[in-house]
């Protein structure tokens, strides 16, 4: 979900859980068969994703050395020797594709992706472990906040249907979620960062600070995270509002809600305890997927704010054809989305007894 359209966009939010409408365990059959089949499918998808991750970077024309040389050639002619030296430094892949693939599978299993081409001589694990915490905290927290806030506003909108409490969040949310991420980021950066000088304009912490588990550093890091966080919040909030509103409204019409009301329960209790609780289920799917996508960071936002997260790293890796780094990041993202999907699937069964059968 690192895509430009990161958060599920409102009306498009699919209340469907992966595999949910998959043929349920046949009532007469063995439930273990169903579970084993799902695990098998999970592993197969994982293998395929791993393989695609291997193929994708190699589809790009030119080698990592070409990418490096193209950067150098902007400053003048590059000699044969420079090319040779750069290839020697990068350790540009040798062997045929099959050998590379076997080597790569070995790396996947041992989670050792070797040395990055772009950031040579830094290793992939060094780079990822530096970038990941920033992305997890920034994008992760914002995703959670956006989900909670959006869901509450969605409930409100559905409950107060037709009033301004409905129109404002829905139309406003639709409008805000239509902002291109980078555009919002640029405007915020310019005004809040440069014109009014309220917030720092780049980095994850002050220029002279060094990461440490201290209060000062925490405050500093928080201060630097505000603008990127607000950007992501603005552009993703709408999706959650619309998603919740649209699943909430039909629920409000359900018989049991009417029944609860008829029994004299307070409207608010009905809305929150009964209707919202049921309506939130489909949105949990999207939320799970969004959380899984968090490790991919937010390329455009991190790019504009010079935020040292995974998204920035990923963009660098892709544009510089850094195979090892790309493979590791793609694997990480794919894995977490798959796992998140899996967890949501299970969670769904816990929360909605009807799917358990």
């Amino acid at each position, binding site marked *: 979900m690192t895509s430009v359209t990161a958060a599920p966009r409102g009306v498009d939010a699919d209340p469907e859980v992966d595999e949910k409408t998959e043929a349920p365990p046949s009532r007469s059959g063995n439930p273990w068969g169903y579970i084993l089949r799902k695990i098998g499918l999970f592993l197969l998808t994982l293998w395929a994703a791993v393989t695609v991750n291997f193929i994708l970077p190699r589809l790009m024309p030119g080698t990592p050395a*070409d990418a490096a040389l193209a950067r150098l050639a902007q400053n003048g002619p590059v000699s044969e020797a420079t090319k040779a030296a750069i290839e020697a430094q990068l350790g540009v892949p040798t062997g045929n594709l099959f050998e590379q693939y076997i080597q790569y599978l070995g790396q996947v299993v041992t989670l050792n992706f070797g040395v990055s081409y772009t950031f040579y001589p830094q290793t992939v694990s060094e780079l990822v472990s530096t970038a990941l915490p920033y992305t997890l905290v920034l994008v992760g927290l914002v995703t959670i906040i956006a989900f909670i806030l959006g869901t509450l506003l969605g409930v409100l909108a559905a409950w107060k249907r037709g009033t301004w409490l409905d129109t404002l969040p829905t139309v406003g949310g639709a409008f805000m979620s239509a902002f291109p991420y980078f555009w919002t980021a640029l405007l915020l950066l310019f005004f809040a960062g440069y014109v009014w000088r309220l917030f720092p304009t780049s980095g994850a912490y002050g220029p002279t600070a060094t990461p440490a588990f201290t209060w000062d550093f925490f405050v500093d890091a928080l201060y630097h995270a505000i603008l990127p966080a607000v950007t992501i919040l603005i552009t993703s909030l709408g999706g959650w509002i619309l998603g919740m509103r649209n699943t909430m409204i039909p629920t409000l019409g359900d018989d049991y809600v009417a029944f609860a009301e008829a029994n004299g329960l307070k409207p608010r209790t009905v809305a929150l305890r009964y209707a919202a609780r049921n309506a939130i289920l489909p949105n949990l799917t999207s939320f799970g997927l969004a959380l899984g996508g968090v490790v991919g960071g937010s390329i455009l936002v991190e790019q504009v704010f010079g935020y040292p997260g995974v998204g920035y790293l990923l963009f660098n890796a892709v544009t510089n054809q850094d195979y090892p780094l790309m493979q590791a990041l793609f694997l990480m993202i794919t894995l977490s989305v798959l796992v998140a999907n899996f967890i949501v699937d299970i969670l769904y069964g816990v929360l909605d007894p009807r799917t358990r059968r």
Partner: protein
Amino acid sequence: MTQTRRRWGAAALAVAAATTLAACSIQIQSAPDPSIPDDTMLIAADTGSPMMERNFNPYLANKRVASFYIYEPLVILDNVTGEEFPWLATGYELPDPSTIVFTIRDGVTWQDGEPFTTDDVVFTLNMLKEFPATDTQGVWGYIASVESDDTTVTIHLQNPDVPAAQLIATTLIVPEHIWKDVDDPGSFRNPDPVGTGPYQLGNFAPQQYTMDKYEGYWQADKVAAEHLILPGSNTQLDIATRGYDWAYSYISDVDNVWVGAGNENTYWFPPGGTIALFPNLAKEPFDNLDVRQGLSLALDRGAVGDAAAEGYMDEAGQTNILLPYQQDDLDPSIPNSGLIEQNRDAALEAFGRAGYTLQGDQLIGPDGQQLSLSITTANGYTDWLRGVQEVQRQWSAIGIDVKVSTPQPAAYQLALRNGDYDFAMGGTGGTGSLFRDFNSLLSTDFLKPVGEEASNNFERYDNPDAQALLDQYKVALDDDERREIGYQLQQIVYNDLPVLALYYGGSWGLMSNAKFTNWPSADNPYASPKTYESTPLIVLTSLEAVK
């Protein structure tokens, strides 16, 4: 309905507000950080991605830029003027075209106090041989052996090659007493660098580091800035607002944005190379000189340069010489300093000689087809793209069907090397060495058939006369003789059009006179204004503090 109308009105209002706001532009003012003292220079030289790795190994591509302020070469070659500055060597001689004798400067010390000796030079060169990954300039493609005594280092070349001296002389020298213990200099990150240069590493953080003046520097009295600050993020907005003393960056509308921001800002954009169109000479009809002449005469190079660099760079002469700062090298017999004016009639006449005639608004060739070609440029090199679009306009106007192809940089590089293009944008010249400028452009040594990777001579120019001149240059010890050969090489480029020079690529120097003065400028062009490679050493030892 009223609700709808109200919303619609709100939308219209927003658009109106946007339009009104657009009318009043916001002038950004430079606001230097008051906590930075007057003896400290803020430089936009290094760029993190976005964090900076503590890597000061001068031979790695991912080194911190300040490695160039720590490690020094024997001789600095300024690429704007083509002038040599004796540095760790007081000079060098070539007793014959295969031998170079460097005289090493006395009284230079490493930043840890150890004396700098000829042994360090010999060690460095031998290390480059042992670890080819560190030999980024490829000096061991020329060197046969190295020997030294107390004051001189003598290098024997594999073949007579006078211009190789300059290349070898610009190698950065590292201390033997530290690097002899390094296992693999090809992956060593050198976190605590010790060099001979004017600055030592101060505090290092991943987003900013500082450099402190080395008081024992061999020309310490000439170093005005006591400290340097190098942030890892230097966006154009940062540069314009943060009160930088020195930056290397292209800024759109620089008079308004940079100079207009105050802080005694000034700029100098000397030519740093020639941006040219490389025709694919292995392809018909571009192998036909008449066609190239027609294409060349159809170009309004001034307009191309204007489009590409927003009017800040001049059109380039068809000589591969950077003017005005390398005027001395220019063949005076070439008319109009090599500038070729747009001339539609002459262009059509040249095309006519090749069998192309203008029919209606199409230039039709002998095969009855419209002359059609594509121009390849790298995606993301926006100045080139702007230039190409202008070329497209101009060539279309004379009846040529011009397509533009913009692959990603790596794919562009591959197309260029493999000769997989009709015309490609590219840079030529600007190394500071006349020989290398022409050698990489014309030498048949680099010649490869289309489909195989060429490392230079991408246009696949095959002229034995040019190669003969280059070979003569390699053994010419006399300055006048070399200049004469240079004239003849310029004649070849001017008459035979192996490339179509368009405009000069700029060296985008932005400086502030608030704390330091005597920056290189058009009036005092003593060195390139760039902040990377070794020429900043010349600038850093020429500046004067204001207070």
